[in-house]
Every structure is written in C-alpha cells, then in structure tokens.
C-alpha cells in the first residue's frame, strides 16, 4: 500500500441550523492506497457525509473544510464544477445504497452506462456499446443484451444495483466510494457484488472506500477499518484485528451483535459515554 491515492486531513462538514452551525463530520483524517478501507459507524456518525464530502457531493447548505483533501495529487478543495465533472465518473465514482433512486427511469440501462463513458476519451458509439456490454457481463448479468435495452423499472432491485455498479465501474475509476452498496441486496447477490469490487481492487488496483454499518461483513471483506462516532474517527485498525479493538465503542458494537452459536442473554448493550463524542 505504498502509493497514496487519497489523502484527507481534518475534514469537517458543517450544516447551519436554527440553533447555530452543526458539525456532522468533525476533523476526519485518513489516507487511502490501492486497498479496501471501511468506514464503519451507526446512523448519524457522519460516515456517509464523509464519503459525499470527498466527492464534492455534500448537499446544500452544507460547508466542507479540510486542511488537506487531495486525490492523486489534485487538490479537491475549491475545485470548480468543470474539474469535478472531469473527475467524477471518469476517475472517481460512488455507488449509493438504493439503486431505484440512482437510475434515471426514462433512459435505458445501456444509454446510462454509455453516458458514463461520455467524458472518457473519444471512442466511437460501437466501441462504447461493446464496453458497456462487457461491463454488464462482468457484473454477472446473465443476459446483457436484454438488460442493455431495458428501462430501470423492467429489472429487479438486485440487478439494478449491479447495473449501478457497472455504470460506476465502466470508466474504470481509480477511486470508488461505496455507501452501503449491498445492504439492499439479498445475501446471494451480495456475495457476487462484493466479489466484483474485490476483483477491481486486487486486479486493477482501484482504491475502495466501503461505507457500512455491518461490522461482521467489513471485518471479512476489507483491509482496514475506520470506526466513526459522532463525526469523529474513534479508532483505526486492521480488519483482521477487529476483535482486539481498544475503544469501548468498537468493542460494544461488536459484542451487541447476536450470534448463531452463542447464547448471550440479555445481549450486551452500549452505554454511550459522553467523553467519546468529545
């Protein structure tokens, strides 16, 4: 993991509210190489906001500040819309949780995938079509030609999610931010999607930020884990060493999950300490 793809220092996201500004991400710092990095936390921990801020997708009126936010040597702070357009889709992309809201209902799947290639070199229409079809095949869609001409409502949710992933991957980005990409999927499809992401990291050297609430999944899928609580990173560790976590929050998150083989009753619950949020 020598070459750094993304480096983030003291990232903060603030939203103005009636009671004054509310900081939802409070000084997050990390670097990402060509690896699988997980950001784990509960709802409201700021994990999704962190992912969006990196891609400049913080919804208005949110304000993003950082001491450093650079992708492959490019300073992303204050990047112009034109710069973002050149980067997003082509070099960095994001997979969202629910495919239904992310696909355009009045465009065929194929047209949407080819659109993702629009900023990507001057290839001909036939070339683009071939690449789109190849990508659909790569995400384990059995009948790529039919899906290519289908509209989003004609395909199932699990297929929609795979189409989304195909769309995000067709331009072969260097950085992918996946926000709960599999939680809307059935377990059997989930495994396939994870396998594709895994391949891209290990074979094409993509950097992956995997945002999830599922510690068990993350511990088996990712290389490193950032645990977020109340807008801060409370602990960073290797995924394989999650069971040796030091921070009481991480430990609580692990122990409160029911398990098939053990019968802990009642389940341990988290006593949130006010000092964690400081």
């Amino acid at each position: 993991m020598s070459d750094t793809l993304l480096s983030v220092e003291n990232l903060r996201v603030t939203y103005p509210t009636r009671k004054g500004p509310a900081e939802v991400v409070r000084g997050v710092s990390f670097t990402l190489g060509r690896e699988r990095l997980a950001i784990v936390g509960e709802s409201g921990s700021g994990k999704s906001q962190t992912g969006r801020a990196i891609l400049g997708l913080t919804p208005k009126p949110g304000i993003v500040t950082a001491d450093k936010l650079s992708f492959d040597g490019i300073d992303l702070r204050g990047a112009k819309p034109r710069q973002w357009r050149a980067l997003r889709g082509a070099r960095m992309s994001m997979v969202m949780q629910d495919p239904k809201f992310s696909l355009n209902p009045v465009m065929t799947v194929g047209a949407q995938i080819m659109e993702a290639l629009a900023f990507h070199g001057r290839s001909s229409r036939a070339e683009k079509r071939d690449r789109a079809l190849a990508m659909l095949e790569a995400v384990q869609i059995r009948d790529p030609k039919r899906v290519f001409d289908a509209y989003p409502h004609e395909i199932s949710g699990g297929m929609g999610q795979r189409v989304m992933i195909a769309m995000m991957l067709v331009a072969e980005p260097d950085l992918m931010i996946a926000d709960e990409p599999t939680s809307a999927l059935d377990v059997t499809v989930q495994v396939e999607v994870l396998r594709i992401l895994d391949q891209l990291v290990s074979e094409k050297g993509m950097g992956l930020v995997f945002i999830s609430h599922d510690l068990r999944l993350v511990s088996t899928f990712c290389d490193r884990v950032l645990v977020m609580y109340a807008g801060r990173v409370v602990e960073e560790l290797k995924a394989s060493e999650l069971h040796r976590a030091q921070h009481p929050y991480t430990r609580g998150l692990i122990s409160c999950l029911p398990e098939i083989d053990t019968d802990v009753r009642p389940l341990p619950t988290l006593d949130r300490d006010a000092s964690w949020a400081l």
Partner: protein
Amino acid sequence: MGLLDVINLDVIFGEAPQQVHAVKGVSFSVREGESYGIVGESGSGKSTVLRAICGLAPVSGGAIELGGREVVSPRGRDFYKTVQMVFQDPYASLHPRHTIDRVLAEPLAIQGFDNREERIERALSDVGLGPGFRFRFPHQLSGGQRQRVAVARALILEPKVLLLDEPTSALDASIQAEVLNLLDRLRAERGLTYVMVSHDLAVVAHMCDRLLVMQHGRAVEELTRDALRARTATTDYTRQLLAASEGYKPAEPK
C-alpha cells in the same frame, strides 16, 4: 395443534393477468408461549405470511387457526385483542401528527378498556420510556424509541400473540440489541407467543426456538435452534444463508 396454526396457506395478490402468487402452500404451527421465526430474503413471502395472519393480506387458500378455531375474514374486533403486530419501519408505523399519548390511547378507546391513564403510563414504563415521552411527537424520538412505542402500542391491548415483522432491521446494531432484550424480557414476563420474521439468521437464532426458512413463497425447511447451531440444515439454500451470515469469503481460485 398449537395456539396458532397456519395450514397450507396461499396468498395471491391482484387479478388474473398480473397475479402475484406471494405465498404458496405454507404450513406451520406455533405453540403457546413459543417464539417462532421465519427467515428468508426479500420477496420470499415471509412478511406476507404475517400480514395474512392479521388480515392485512388475503388468505387465498388454506386456513389460519387461532386456538383451534379458524379465523374469518374480515377479522372481528376481538381478534385484535389476541393478536397484535410490530412493523418493520418505526419511521413509517407511527402517525407523524399524533403524540405518543394519542397513539397509545386510541387502541384503548377502540377496544373499550378502562383505567386508560394508568394503562398508558404502565405501557410506557414497560418498554423503558419514562413519562417525559408521553406527549412527544414521533419526530422528537429516535428510531429505537419509536420502535419501543410501537411495541408499547401492540402490547397495550394485552394480546397473547405478537407478530414481529423485522422489528430491528431499520435500527442500528446497538439499538437492535436493546430492542431484542426488551422483546425477550416482555415475553418472559408475560408468557407471550412470538412469530418473528427476519432476514438475519443470527437475530432469529437468538430470539426463536424454532424457525422456518422460506424462499420464493415456499417453505424450504423447518429447523430448531439446536439444529441450526449444529449446522444440520438439509437444504442448499439454508446452507447458503448460513454461509452468508458469517461474512465475506474470497472466491476460491477456479
């Protein structure tokens, strides 16, 4: 014969050309005081079974018996004093303009219970919410607190059977543990019978004595908790679910 018997249940939605056969010939029997689980993925028909039991989905074939007597459609008012349900999404199951007080008072008014003030206060304290919550609106509560209110609403009519439709899948893991503990405690205290639907094998294994695995509207197999722990599942599908619940395994080299 148990307290709740589902016999060869079929549920069909819609008219002939666009018919959806959501549940196909599912049978199971739940004994009094037992906790029974139904596991499956989205579209397996597991929630539809629960909805058919309480009358929110049509019983197109087969029968549902409660205490040995077939339940009729539409359900009578008394049916709901015996069977209540907790829904999956606590953000959608509470009326956005009703205070918690109104949420809890309404079932009592409909069913003509007395001592309403007392019952409301006790219901709130039973689910671990203080009296300070009574006059709040749902938007002033967190997801876990809302689900506690939903449990209180279901239990305020003192039912025998509680149908739980993915009661924790919309909640964070730490909140899930709190709600599961609450449900566990209430069952022990009141001798309730649970039928719990979930996509999470670990949750069902934790909560239920026996479970039914469903896929594409059919029952795949019925297992006890011990059989699940001993990995003696007989069908491929159950084994797949078990494997997936243990996390991601890198592909074996082909």
